[in-house]
């Protein structure tokens, strides 16, 4: 209603102006019957009111939609009664269709792209596999150096794959009840080459007497752990070094802490570590960093319902903490 009245304001003003003008003309001509003038004004006012009511009623739904400021969807309900609103309605419908089809087109493009990337990564895994086999058996420095690079290649490919899959996460994950400790052990052992080559060794400490069961997806969580472990090793400059991995239970939650004694993250960078493509001070000083590792960790944990925390001090090291809501861990009380 407010919008309608606001819209009719000029009409009001001109109507009053016109009324005054006509009365003025007659007044100047000598007509002095004020009662009659007022009566005429009143009659005229009523006609205006009737017109306005009629106008309002026919466009009520239209005005209401405009006032509420809802999206293009809402206008589908409105049935236009006046020429202006009808044309506007048509325009809105056309825009809406256009926007939906454009969205679909873009979505198609993205899907194609995703498919291509996934195919490509899988194809690349074969030559990587070949090289890996070729050097696996040899022990000379050249082969081990090639082996190191192949490990990095493989990690890079996995990074691309998981980033691409993140968008269609809901199709790709299966939640199970898993033992946190064995999952962590498997992830750590899978990286044994990395630890040995960099002379930074893991130490595991699970203080809980019973196994810590959590609800998670093995594949995705393993990827997250690999990212964190790789970071921890990468940013530990002294050798030999240690990565301390602690698992414990507090009330209804299971905690996993991975601490390194590396270079740490400057305070100024801390708030942004989980941003995509963020490399910060360390990214500039160390080897190539895509800046995607921690971003993926945060996204994936978010999807799985796990919390991520990070603490760090320059020169002292970094601690990454994963917190698992374990409705399953209640079962260990039995």
């Amino acid at each position, binding site marked *: 209603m407010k919008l309608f009245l606001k819209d009719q304001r000029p009409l009001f003003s001109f109507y009053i102006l016109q009324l005054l003008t006509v009365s003025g003309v007659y007044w100047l001509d000598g007509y002095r019957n004020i009662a009659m003038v007022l009566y005429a004004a009143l009659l005229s006012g009523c006609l205006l009111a009737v017109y306005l009511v009629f106008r309002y009623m026919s466009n009520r739904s239209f005005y209401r939609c405009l006032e509420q400021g809802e999206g293009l969807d809402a206008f589908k309900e409105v049935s236009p009664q006046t020429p202006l609103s009808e044309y506007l309605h048509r325009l809105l419908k056309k825009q809406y269709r256009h926007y939906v089809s454009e969205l679909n087109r873009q979505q198609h493009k993205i899907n194609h792209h995703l498919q291509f990337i996934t195919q490509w990564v899988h194809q690349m*895994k074969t030559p990587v596999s*070949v090289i890996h086999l070729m050097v696996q058996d040899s*022990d000379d420095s050249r082969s081990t150096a090639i082996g190191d690079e192949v490990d990095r290649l493989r990690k890079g490919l996995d990074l691309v794959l998981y980033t691409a899959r993140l968008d269609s996460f809901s199709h790709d994950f299966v939640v199970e009840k898993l033992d946190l400790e064995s999952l962590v052990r498997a992830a750590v052992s899978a990286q044994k080459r990395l630890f*040995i080559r960099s002379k930074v060794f*893991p*130490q595991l400490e699970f203080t809980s007497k019973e196994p810590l069961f959590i609800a998670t997806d093995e594949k995705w969580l393993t990827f997250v752990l690999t990212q964190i472990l790789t970071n921890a090793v990468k940013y530990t400059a002294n050798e030999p070094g240690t990565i301390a991995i602690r698992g414990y239970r507090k009330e209804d939650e299971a905690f996993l802490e991975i601490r390194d004694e590396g270079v740490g993250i400057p305070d100024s960078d801390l708030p942004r570590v989980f941003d995509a493509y963020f490399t910060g001070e360390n990214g500039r000083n160390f080897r190539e960093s895509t800046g995607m590792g921690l971003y993926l960790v945060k996204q994936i944990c978010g999807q799985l319902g796990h919390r991520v925390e990070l603490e760090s001090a320059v020169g002292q090291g970094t601690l990454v903490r994963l917190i698992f809501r374990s409705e399953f861990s209640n079962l260990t009380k039995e």
Partner: protein
Amino acid sequence: MFKIFIVEDDQRLAVLLQEYLQRFGYSTHIVQDFDRVKQEFEAAAPHLVLLDVNLPKYDGYYWCRQIRNLSTCPILFISAREGKMDQVMALENGGDDYITKPFDYDIVIAKIMSHLRRAYGTYAGGGGERSVNFDGLRLDKDRLYLSLNDERVELSLTEVKMLEELMQRGEEIVSRDRLLEKIWDDQTFVDDNTLNVYVTRVRKKLSALGIEDALQTVRGQGYRLVPRWEEKQ
């Protein structure tokens, strides 16, 4: 003598697998014509099949079904795809196991042996995997002992893994890193000191057999086993 049938279109990968398997005493056949996999299978009559999923013409799942019409031998899929659905597909199409690329030789061999054991009930693969021989020194990997002539000494599993690597390399130097990789234990992992500890232990065990100065440290490179026991024989 077990025969392994390799269905992999990447020729280099196939050849690498073949070489490795032959070292373990298996005979192999690499498929040449991917239109006639079934016929080649019939002609080769293998004991086990290594089957890639992505093949020219028909995919691995198709060939698995075809082979299953002829035989119930173990079929191990190899593929770059590690999705759960891919694995389920493989198993539902008649496969017995699934290995993802890139893979380690260790895993391939372990799985092949495991499936052969289950299917044919024996360990025999041409010998050489259950025990390692190096110039008369014999390492029994199953029963965990080291023997020279008639004397034997018991070993821990880690010591076995270490000696296995050293003995398989003959007199070649084995790097520290490689040894650490081999003795990596899922329960206690390793650290910088672990290797020194085990080298000392292994030396003691060798001494128990009367072998001295065989396990040599090569500074900056690693360790090697020099057969100093020939004089004793």
